[in-house]
């Protein structure tokens, strides 16, 4: 017999593709939360969500949704 999760204790799993690798989160989170979790807080990054740039000023407001595709980039040496 299978026990179905009840709505009030349902374990929410959000799966997000970040820089080509799938990451799982148990709770809803904002982009700012995600950046902290990724230990990228305070670093100079740029972030694209589903093909659109998310300005840094919106990191606190925007919530990550299940199935989101994120690219997080930095500056590196190049010619």
């Amino acid at each position, binding site marked *: 017999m299978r026990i179905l999760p009840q709505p009030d204790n349902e374990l929410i799993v959000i799966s997000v593709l*970040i*820089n*080509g*690798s799938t*990451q799982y989160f148990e709770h809803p989170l904002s982009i700012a939360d995600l950046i902290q*979790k*990724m*230990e*990228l807080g305070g*670093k*100079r*990054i*740029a*972030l*694209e969500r589903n*093909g659109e*740039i998310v*300005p*840094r000023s919106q990191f606190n407001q925007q919530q990550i949704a299940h199935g989101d595709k994120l*690219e*997080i*980039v*930095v*500056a*590196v*040496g*190049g*010619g």
Partner: protein
Amino acid sequence: MTHDSLMIAGKTYHSRLLVGTGKYKDFSETKAAVEASGAEIITIAIRRSNIGQNPNEPNLLEILPPAKYTLLPNTAGCYSADDAVRTLRLARELLDGHSLVKLEVLGDPQSLYPNVVETISAAKTLVSEGFQVMVYTSDDPIVAKQLEDLGCVAIMPLASLIGSGMGILNPWNLQLIMERVRVPVLVDAGVGTASDAAIAMELGCHGVLMNTAIAAAKNPVLMASAMKLAVEAGRAAYLAGRMPKKLYSAIPSSPTGGLIN
């Protein structure tokens, strides 16, 4: 020489040498080479961040602060207009709205030869979005003129293939480009050693952009200072106006009179 400055997109630069920041053994070598080159415009690449693996990894922008240098994000590794545009939109966000960029759209991974069709397409989009586009291209004078006409702020033809160190293989095409184009023309790619940079400048190019010639030298910091001198010397020789070449002159440099017999 004090008034001889390079103007790109309305901004004045004193150095005509632009350098890349790739292929160095570590950031301290990058920093030392960039400083020795005297360059004010420095190219950088945009890549995926490590996510959590290496939180204390130093950041290139801490070594080369945007307040001190004009950072020129590139689109190296992009093979389509869409990828190049996407990369530079991210770069603009990363650099707080900075709009001066280096566009390069490559044709194939062996030669890294530019794909001019995709380059023109990307340049149109970027110009329409307010980017100031310095564009890496082939040494085709017609394409160079088209890139200028659609609004690029500098035309940067290759001298030979990226990373080849083969020097200036077709000086005549560079001259055709310079005759047709009003915005600055900078040789980008192919310089191998100091004389190549000097020749580019003697031809009348407004500047030279290089990475591998410095980074792959046995002593990159010394080569960076050699390149600085070569670009300065080549520019001064261009401004001075060289003597014409002739097989012989029959006019000696020493007086013809007063000889002892």
